[in-house]
Every structure is written in structure tokens, then in C-alpha cells.
């Protein structure tokens, strides 16, 4: 047969474009989704019937058919199953179905893909309104929705954008002016957004901008990405969020791990199957101590190099263990002794004494801090950061000290003879005593 027959396609709902196997199911769907009174949940048979019921029983007006596409929300038009659908819409539906089949490259069946494009309620994903026009034009040219652009304003005008405000409000429109201008295109653009999300995006850059949370990797069950992230970032979220094809966000009240609830509950019990956690963490700790000791030895050897301080920073940043803090404290203490010995051996003038005092104070403070670390095992990181800063400062000072000492050595070479060794030694002893007293009082 060369001539294309107009075969009776599967029944579809005029209000939301969904397809059904059976007209009976279609009717049930319409009754449940489109002709159901939102106040008393009574299911009517037609759109006008619903409007009359609400007026008579609840004294309320219904201006649009619930859960319907914006261009199909006219409550006056009487549709029952497949009866009453205007011929133009029938043709349009056929055209969409046939046109879509040729460029379908998705997993979903072609018919379903077509159905998803015009949505009843736009998904919660938000796209900056100023991005809509280029999409919209492209998408609509492709799917032949252009003829519907004209009739849209009259439908949308009186009620504004039927579904949009409820969803657009939470992420507030950034460009209200553009919003107002693009009211007619907004609803359609939301379709484009959904279309983009559901198919392979034709504008990957834009679609990435739309979808703020990329699809999670730990849970393959999520069908479409949503802004409310279900990705395991830090705390494990308590539920999965799914956006179904009709644009309804479903939140599954189940932890996202791929385990049964019994397994999750059993984890908290000391059963034989769960005993592997402790070994891993202790091995981590032992590993962390070695980089730190090497970093600390770098302190004592490479006093002047700036690179050593940066390497210290990185190494210390990596480690998080108390053992490291303790070993650091020990190293710092020996360093302090070394530094003090150097300082004391060459202490001469006031300026020198001041510098030494500064160094000692810092070293003492550092030793005290390190000891505090050894005691307070829990608060490692903040202390370590402070330590790093102080160590860096100390090194800068040490560098200064060394520089000064070298200068003074040259100067004192001339005056070295006059200094009595005893007073220098006494000063040294005094400082040692002072330091030891401080250390003991910690």
C-alpha cells in the first residue's frame, strides 16, 4: 500500500497529551486528573461538568482544567475520552507523533518523548528567563508549535500563567521585566527546558546551566536531575528525589543507599557482619604521622628557605592526627632549645635581648600549644592551623635572628674581648631557668 492510512492512534488525553493503551484507561485518567474537584475530590465526567459542580456546590469558579497544558486548559470545551477533540488538535497530535519518530534517539519510546515536551506543570528546574528566547525559537520551529503561539496569549492573559507562579516563585525571577515580556513564551519555554532535559541536550552549555545539581552517581535510580540535590555531599540525604515524566517531583521516603531498611538498621547493632571500620581509621592515623615528622625535621634544617615553610604547610594540612602533633611538639621543643642556645650564646645588646625575648616567647607559646595539643586530642585542625601560622612567624623571626646574629658577629668580633664571659653565662643560665620554670608551670 503506497498511500499512508490515517490509522487510529492510541488514545491520548487532550488536556495533557499523555497516551494510553485503552480508551477506558484514558477516561479513568481524565476523571482522576482533570475532572476531579479540588475541594471535595468528587470526580466529574467533563470539564463543563466540573465547572458547574464547583459553582453550584462550593460557590467557586474554576477557570482552568486541573493538571492540563496551558493551551489546553479551557474548561468550556467538552472532551470525554477521545470525543470532542477539535480536528485541528487531532491533526497536530498526529503530526507531532510522526515528526518525532524520525529523530528519536532516546531510550524512551518516540511517542512518549513527544508527549513529554509540552508539560502540564513545568518542572521545578529554573532557567533564567532571558535564556528562553533562543531555545524557544529553536524548539518550536523543530516541533511545529509555532501555530500555537498566537492562541496562547488569550488563554494565558486572564489567568496569568496558570502553573508558573507556583513554581517560579521560590526561585524568584531574576529579570521581572523580561518575565513580563516573555509571559507567553515562558510557559512554552518551560516545555523547552523539559524537552532539553529529557532528551540529549541540543544546547549542552545551556542545559548544564539549567540543571544545577548534576545527576547523582551513587544512586542510579534517579531518572532526571533536579535542583534539590539528592547527591551524597557530606551528609547522606534521607530520601531520593525523582522527577517523573509528567513533571511531578516525587520524593521517595527511603535512604538513598542501595540497601534494605533492615540492613541499615542492622548496621547499628554489633552483628558479626559489620566489624571492619576500626582497622581502617587506625591505619590512617599511623600513616599521617610520618609526613609530619619529616616536615618537622625540615624545619630544623632548612631555616631560611621559604619553600620549606610552604612544604610544611602542605604536609601539616594533609595530616590530621594527634601523633603528629605530639611529635611536632617534641621537635619544636628541641628546636626551641637549639634556638635558645644560639640566642643566648650571642646575646649582647638590648636589641638583641628583645629579639631573643620575642623568639623565646614564641617558642614557649608554641611549646605550650603543642602540649595543649597533646592533651586536647579532638581539636586538631584549628590548632594545627594556628601552629602553622606561628611556626611561620617564628621562622621569619628566626631568620631575622640569624641575620642579626651574623651581622653582630661581624660587629662583635671587634668588641668580643671586652665582654666578660661570666655575665653572658649568667644571662644564659637565667634564661634557661626562666624557661624551665615556664615549662614546668604548663
Amino acid at each position, binding site marked *: 500500500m503506497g498511500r499512508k492510512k490515517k490509522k487510529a492512534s492510541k488514545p491520548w488525553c487532550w488536556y495533557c497529551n499523555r497516551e494510553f493503551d485503552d480508551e477506558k484507561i484514558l477516561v479513568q485518567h481524565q476523571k482522576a486528573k482533570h475532572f476531579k474537584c479540588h475541594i471535595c475530590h468528587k470526580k466529574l465526567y467533563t470539564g463543563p461538568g466540573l465547572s458547574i459542580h464547583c459553582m453550584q456546590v462550593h460557590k467557586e469558579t474554576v477557570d482552568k482544567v486541573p493538571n492540563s497544558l496551558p493551551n489546553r486548559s479551557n474548561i468550556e470545551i467538552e472532551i470525554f475520552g477521545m470525543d470532542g477533540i477539535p480536528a485541528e488538535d487531532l491533526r497536530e497530535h498526529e503530526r507531532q507523533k510522526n515528526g518525532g519518530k524520525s529523530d528519536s534517539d532516546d531510550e524512551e519510546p518516540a511517542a512518549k518523548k513527544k508527549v513529554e515536551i509540552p508539560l502540564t506543570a513545568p518542572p521545578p528546574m529554573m532557567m533564567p528567563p532571558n535564556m528562553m528566547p533562543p531555545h524557544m525559537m529553536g524548539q518550536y520551529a523543530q516541533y511545529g508549535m509555532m501555530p500555537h503561539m498566537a492562541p496562547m496569549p488569550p488563554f494565558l492573559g486572564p489567568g496569568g500563567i496558570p*502553573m508558573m507562579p507556583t513554581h517560579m516563585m521560590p526561585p524568584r525571577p531574576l529579570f521581572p521585566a523580561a518575565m513580563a515580556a516573555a509571559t507567553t513564551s515562558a510557559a512554552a519555554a518551560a516545555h523547552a527546558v523539559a524537552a532539553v532535559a529529557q532528551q540529549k541536550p541540543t544546547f549542552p552549555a545551556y542545559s548544564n546551566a539549567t540543571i544545577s545539581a548534576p545527576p547523582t552517581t551513587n544512586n542510579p*535510580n534517579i531518572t532526571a536531575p533536579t535542583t534539590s540535590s539528592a547527591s551524597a555531599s557530606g551528609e547522606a540525604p534521607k530520601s531520593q528525589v525523582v522527577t517523573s515524566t509528567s513533571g511531578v*517531583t*516525587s520524593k*521517595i521516603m527511603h*535512604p538513598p543507599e*542501595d540497601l534494605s531498611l533492615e540492613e541499615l538498621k542492622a548496621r547499628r547493632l554489633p552483628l558479626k557482619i559489620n566489624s571492619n571500620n576500626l582497622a581502617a581509621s587506625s591505619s590512617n592515623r599511623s600513616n599521617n604521622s610520618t609526613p609530619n615528622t619529616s616536615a618537622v625535621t625540615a624545619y630544623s634544617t632548612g631555616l631560611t628557605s621559604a619553600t620549606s615553610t610552604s612544604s610544611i604547610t602542605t604536609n601539616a594540612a594533609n595530616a590530621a592526627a594527634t601523633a603528629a602533633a605530639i611529635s611536632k611538639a617534641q621537635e619544636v621543643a628541641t628546636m626551641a632549645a637549639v634556638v635558645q642556645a644560639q640566642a643566648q650564646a650571642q646575646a649582647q645588646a638590648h636589641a638583641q635581648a628583645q629579639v631573643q625575648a620575642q623568639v623565646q616567647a614564641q617558642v614557649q607559646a608554641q611549646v605550650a600549644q603543642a602540649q595543649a595539643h597533646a592533651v586536647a586530642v579532638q581539636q586538631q585542625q584549628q590548632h594545627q592551623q594556628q601552629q602553622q601560622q606561628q611556626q611561620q612567624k617564628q621562622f621569619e623571626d628566626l631568620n631575622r635572628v640569624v641575620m642579626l646574629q651574623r651581622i653582630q658577629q661581624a660587629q662583635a668580633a671587634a668588641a668580643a674581648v671586652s665582654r666578660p664571659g661570666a655575665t653572658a653565662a649568667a644571662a644564659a643560665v637565667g634564661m634557661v631557668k626562666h624557661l624551665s620554670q615556664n615549662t614546668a608551670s604548663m
Partner: protein
Amino acid sequence: MYNISGQLRLKTKSTNPMNDFEVVAPPDDAVSALKFSPAAVQQNYLIAGSWDSSVRCWEVEQTGKTLPRAIKTVGGCPVLDACWSDDGTKVFIAAENQVKIWDLLSDQTMQVAAHQAPVKTCHWIKGSKYACLMTGSWDKTIKFWDTRSSNPMLSLNLPERCYCADVDYPIAVVGTAGKNVVVYSLENTPTEFKRQEGLLKYQHRAIAVCRDKKQNPTGYAVGSIEGRVVLKYLNPLNPKDRLTFKCHRSAVSAASQDVYAINDMAFHPIHGTLVTVGSDGTFCFWDADACKRLKCSEKMNQSITKCSLNANGHIFAYALGYDWSKGYEYFSPTKKPQIFLRRCYEELNPRTA
């Protein structure tokens, strides 16, 4: 207000919105198994296994009064499943990696089965030529035990951990992790009949064998954590071999809904209608063949973890308790588990409901 002599109606509607009979002395932790005694026993007995390591047994009288008859604790391990023997004199208790048999008359227990990991399901099979215990475990095996021997009669591998199972001779069905269902034929000796993958897109949580009008097992229903049930017929007459419906969902707004897991399901022994209980704290009655929902209960303040129908289909038991669906953080020790009984014969009758 507890009336010790039994017939209990709570004054506060908050925990018993359906005004059902409350079972006295319920367990202290969530119920993991709830089973009525088999038809062979004259009276109705109800056993409940719980995470508090106990199995309790009550006698249920016609008036709705419950009398605690026995309690057995299994040393610190949570009970994951329990079932009756076919003559109603013994109870099998699956606790941690073992299954014990509890002789109700002598109050003795003895180990009859063991796995490498906790046993999730245990069912007694009474066949025409043999009788044995079927145990499914998280060690990805299903074993069949003659209770007199310590070695299994048969051990079959599963594609993944066993999550749920049901037996209705000569069919046994097992739902596993990874969304698999394995169907076994139990005639002569248990053999794997069919593996089915991807019936539902989310984790399988409950499974039940359904019968046709002639009371022959003809298919099974699977419930997932995504508030969806699929009914699969094994030998379908028409090409459409399955029925799917959504349930246990509550609309939060026009475009978002909360979807709850189905924790348990049961088919009515006489009417063939289906009961589902969910994480949302409701139970629903369905006429699956006609795709009709017969009744949905009020939402209770806790999830319903398990349900059971008695042998003649007059009593429906359901257990309230926290099913861990929101993780550890939402566990509230002040919310005690409860078990309720309801007269359900007329409500589950598809013609009168």
C-alpha cells in the same frame, strides 16, 4: 488506657485512628514478622517477631480480645522473620544467621538452619511429597532444610541478597536486591523456574503469591520502595502479563508528592484481594484484577511494618513501628510499636466493598 482483660479501645484517636483492636503487650521494638496460625489450628494464634529479639504469641478470640500466650527471646539478635509449621505446633524463628525451631508445647528451641549472613526470610513448605523449611539470607543463597539434619537438603544461589519471599505450594517467589525476582517450582524438589529482572525500577521490598479463582497459585505481586506494586502472572492468557499501580503516595502540592515504601503485602485467602501496608502509615485494600482500590485507611502516626491475614480471612493484623525509612535520626524511642486487629472480611470482599 490499658484494660488488662483485653478488649482494648484507645481513648486517644491519635495512635488508633481506625478504631481497631489493639493487641496487648506488644514488643518493644519494631515488628519484623507477623503471622497468623495456619488453618490446621482451631483457634487463631498470632506470632510477632521483633527487633527486640523476641517472638511473642497471642491467642486471638472472636471478640477481638488478645491473650498473651508465650514469648521466646533469642539472645540479643533481632528476629527478622518467623513462620508457623503447617500443623501449628512449631514456630520457626530467623534470628541473625540462624533459624531456630520453637516447639510451642514444650517451649524448647533448637537450631535447624544456618547461613553465612543474617537470614531474612523463613517459610515452611508443605508439599505433597515432602516438607521442609525454606530460608533466604543476605548471603545470596536460599536453602531448604529437613529439620532433622544440620545440613541443608538443597542450597540454591540467588543473584543478590534475599529481601523478601513467599511460598504457596507449588510456587515460591523470592525478591532480591538488584530488583530481581526468582520463581521456584516446588514440585518433586525445589527448582528454579524463572528469573525476572526489572519488574519495578526500585528496590523490591515485599512479595506475595496470588491465586486464581480456583485457589491455584497463578502469579505474584511485588512491592517496591517507590510506592508501586506490580502483579505478574506466570502463565498469562493474554499478552498483557502484568498489572501495575501506584500506592502509598501523598501529594504535598500540585507538583510534588511524597512516595513511601511498601513494607508488606498479603492476599486474602478467600477473596483473592490484596492488602498493602506502607511506610506512610496506611494500609490499603485492592482489587487487583479490576485495578480498583477498595479502601485506604487513615494515616497513622507510625509506619506499618508488617501485616497478616488469618487463615479464614476474617482478621487483618497490622503492626505499627518505625521502619527506618528516614534513617537513624528519626528513631524515637517514645513511639512504641503497636499491633492492631481489624475485621476485614467484608471490606476485602470485592463485591461489597
